[in-house]
């Protein structure tokens, strides 16, 4: 027997000045299910809440409706209020007669009162069909996975580890370090990137709470917040990590050669290699594409094997294979970083064919003391020092037609940094920068930009470059100085393009694997652009660094710390409360057609086989099953379900129909 208590709030004059609250309370007093009805000045105040609690006890109420403000405001308050006197918090409903009524119908007191009565009747009809629901509990695996071992991933892992939790870093390449390890200097302080990064890498590798899983890929993510089962593919390294001492002898005589990706293909590396001297782990891998042994094996032969002969530890293992293993984690941080936009889409810049038109990252390797030119700034084509350098900003950025529509945020500053570095290294070299805007919103950023022009004498020209072409040994850069309103042509020896930052090419696939959202460009989407910048829509999965959108190092590090805090807050719990307002399948009604399975954004629905007695024998059949820990309660499945066997708790078909009927009945 439903015994509903109805409490109409005046909210001072907010509601009371428009809605005749006493009349509303009176109008529903005899409505089916209502056992008690009253109005009061401030329901959310302490006396107001006490009033509700007393009424529950006095009138033996088993359901409560409060008509007041938006449930987005005080639903939690009133749920707690009724729970205190032993009522299940889900036996409570709210009618919004402030935001949806008194505030928007000022002066129309009669109609607003009628509307309030309707809204209360709808709430009463619904609450009569409410069911007792209990929050669920799920255990938490106290270990985190950080996907990506760049600066964001390293920082995040360190912060989690220093809070006392276990954390694994999953890195796709043979070494952690990421893009920051390729960069020579960092703006605006011009300190050496490796000098500040390497200690962090060492700290991560030696931290007792951190495990590095390098040269490995994320294969599959199952489970839910607190309980992820992650399948990891450890790629065949061809080197036994337990035996290898990292002496490097194997690399000295390797005859296999390949483009050195770390050095932007500006030189060659051996087939057995570590990406860079400070790599961690500093143990090599064999690149099977360029290894003579593996190449010959494809042709049915088996040659070379020099590295195995050289290795004093006997660590070379040509027979290694990829290995899949499953690990349990309570939280996942995505820190997969970015890639550099490929400027070869621009025909007007030579389709990437001119060797002396290079990208910003190329330049970082050129100017790096351990890079292919030992830090001498020379042209890739003839190794001569350039006397005139043109830098072009926004290549691929802010270009919806040929590149990306967004601003890559970092290019203004790294271009300024590189310009000053050229002027430092080659004082006789003239540097021009073509720009559209200079965006320097960071600490000491604008000061740095101004120094670039004022102290370093770099000429900034406002305008996009229309064409770059080779003429003899030089590159002619055709642009416009829009401030002068004149065309300008510059004969350059070297052109450096400030290429956009783009997500990893497989970021969309990765997002689907993990079950998080991504935007049109492939960046992972945060749960709220303002208030949830490191969370995703999937509980337990967080974001750090440039995988979410272009970011520089300080921003990446800051976000990594923020993600770490969220992870720690999660891992600090022994159990997680789960909302009970989830979908549930009535297996008696379900035909097992499976139409609901693909619509679930959380992969919460699976078909499972049940046994039942039918015609005197036990038969098996498939029915849909909702994992209540994964389900977030959207209700998409309920509409797909023809038989109505999938239903959403607290928003059941019967509840919604009751509300519809309650509203329509008032029209008779």
């Amino acid at each position, binding site marked *: 027997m439903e015994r509903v208590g109805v409490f109409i709030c005046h909210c001072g004059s907010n509601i009371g000045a428009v809605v005749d609250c006493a009349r509303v309370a009176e109008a529903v007093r005899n409505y089916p299910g209502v056992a008690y009805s009253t109005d009061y000045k401030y329901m959310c105040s302490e006396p107001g809440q006490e009033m509700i609690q007393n009424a529950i006890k006095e009138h033996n109420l088993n359901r409560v409706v409060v008509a007041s403000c938006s449930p987005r405001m005080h639903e939690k308050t009133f749920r707690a209020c009724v729970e205190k006197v032993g009522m299940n918090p889900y036996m409570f409903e709210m009618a919004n007669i402030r935001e949806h009524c008194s505030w928007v119908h000022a002066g129309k007191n009669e109609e607003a009162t009628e509307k309030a009565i309707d809204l209360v009747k709808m709430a009463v009809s619904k609450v009569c069909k409410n069911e007792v629901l209990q929050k669920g509990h799920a255990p938490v695996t106290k270990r985190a996975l950080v996907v990506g071992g760049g600066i964001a991933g390293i920082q995040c892992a360190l912060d989690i580890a220093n809070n006392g939790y276990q954390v694994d870093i999953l890195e796709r390449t043979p070494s952690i370090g990421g893009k920051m390890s390729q960069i020579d200097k960092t703006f605006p302080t011009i300190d050496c990137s490796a000098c500040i990064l390497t200690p962090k890498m060492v700290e991560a590798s030696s931290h007792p709470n951190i495990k590095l899983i390098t040269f490995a890929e994320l294969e599959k993510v199952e489970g839910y917040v607190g309980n992820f089962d992650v399948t990891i593919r450890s790629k065949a390294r061809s080197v036994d990590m337990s035996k290898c001492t990292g002496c490097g002898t194997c690399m000295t005589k390797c005859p296999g050669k390949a483009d050195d990706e770390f050095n932007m293909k500006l030189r060659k590396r051996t087939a057995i290699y570590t990406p860079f001297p400070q790599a961690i782990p500093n143990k090599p891998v064999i690149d099977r594409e360029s290894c003579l042994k593996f190449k010959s094996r494809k042709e049915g032969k088996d040659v070379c094997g020099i590295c195995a002969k050289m290795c004093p530890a006997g660590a070379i293992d040509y027979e290694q294979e990829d290995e899949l293993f499953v690990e349990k984690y309570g939280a996942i941080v995505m820190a997969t970083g970015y890639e550099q936009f490929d400027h070869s889409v621009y*025909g*007007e810049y*030579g*389709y990437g064919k001119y060797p002396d038109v290079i990208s910003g990252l190329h330049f970082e390797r050129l100017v790096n003391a351990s890079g292919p030119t030992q830090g001498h700034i020379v042209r890739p084509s003839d190794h001569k020092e350039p006397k005139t350098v043109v830098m072009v900003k926004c290549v691929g950025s802010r270009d919806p037609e040929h590149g990306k529509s967004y601003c890559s945020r970092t290019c203004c500053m790294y271009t300024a940094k590189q310009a000053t570095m050229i002027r430092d290294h080659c004082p006789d070299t003239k540097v021009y920068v073509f720009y559209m805007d200079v965006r320097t919103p960071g600490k000491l950023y604008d000061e740095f930009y101004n120094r670039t022009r004022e102290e370093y004498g770099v000429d900034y020209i406002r305008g996009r470059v229309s*064409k770059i*072409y*080779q*003429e003899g040994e030089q590159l*002619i850069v055709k642009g416009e100085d829009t401030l002068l309103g004149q065309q300008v042509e510059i004969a350059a020896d070297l052109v450096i393009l400030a290429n956009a930052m783009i997500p990893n090419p497989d970021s969309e696939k990765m997002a689907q694997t993990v079950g998080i959202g991504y935007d049109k460009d492939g960046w992972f989407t945060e749960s709220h652009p303002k208030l949830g910048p490191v969370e995703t829509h999937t509980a337990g999965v967080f974001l750090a660094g440039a995988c979410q959108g272009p970011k520089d190092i300080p921003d990446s590090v800051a976000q990594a710390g923020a993600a770490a805090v969220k992870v720690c807050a999660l891992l600090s719990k022994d159990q997680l409360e789960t909302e009970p307002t989830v979908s549930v399948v009535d297996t008696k009604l379900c035909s097992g057609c499976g139409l609901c399975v693909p619509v679930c954004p959380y992969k919460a629905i699976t078909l499972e086989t049940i046994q039942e007695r039918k015609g005197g024998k036990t038969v098996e059949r498939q029915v849909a099953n909702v994992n209540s820990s994964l389900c977030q309660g959207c209700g998409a499945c309920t509409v797909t379900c023809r038989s109505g066997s999938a239903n959403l708790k607290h928003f059941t078909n019967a509840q919604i129909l009751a509300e519809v009927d309650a509203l329509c009945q008032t029209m008779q």
Partner: protein
Amino acid sequence: MDYAYYPGCSLESTGIEFHASTKAVAKELGINLIEIPDWNCCGASSAHARGHWISLALPARNMAIAEAAGLDVAIPCAACYARSKKVELEVTESEEAKEKIEEIIGRPYTGKSKARNLTEILHNDLGVDAIKAKVVKPLKGLKVLTYYGCLMSRPPEIACDDIEDPIMLDDIMTALGAEVLQWGFKTECCGGSLTACRPQVGLDMTKKIMDAAKKSGADCIVTACPMCHSNLDMRQDQLSKKYGAYNIPVYFVTEMMGVAMGMNPKDLCINRHFVEAESTLGKIGKTSEGGEA
């Protein structure tokens, strides 16, 4: 291979060499060009400055005549090609435009008959190998620059080749045995449409291109646009008077094909160029050491 043939006004006058060489080469390659009877000017240069529909209506009539005959139209002139292609695209994309155009020209034109650039036909339909097979006198030792101008390469919807780095002429010239030099002016506008009314502007634009050509050390320029050709060829004497000698012959790609196929240069009208063009052909077959001046 049958095509309706639209020579356009230029090929009857300033671009007569293009006309002659196109016809000769087509015959040799087995391309049957059937001239559109009583064709009219496509309105290039001016109609589009006067009105949208007039610029579509003029080429539409020619296309409609070809469509009635069930043929695609081979158009050597880049300007005529661009204008004809524009109307083809317009009627295919918009039913409303099609109806309006048909009303104006009083003939049906559905866009079924396609406007095809002659160079595109040579390169894509016939193919470089077929051209190579007909070469009897390879253009060995000849250093050429290919020049496409703007009307073959832009706007993108009209372009029948890469818009920033077209290669069709390069491929054909390589097939003929010439050495193709790279430069940054393949698709730069020569200002041909401005020479008539703003000669100094046109001359400046031409000069930039000719300067680059001179710098490149090429023997000649090869083009497929009669406007570019007449502009670059005829105005060199003016440039020379003002800025010193240029004397770089400018050939139509079909002239070069004819030469490589062993035809008499006079039959191809190579003797009618403004910049003397016959002697350069003498370099063919010679090693470049002696040739370098």
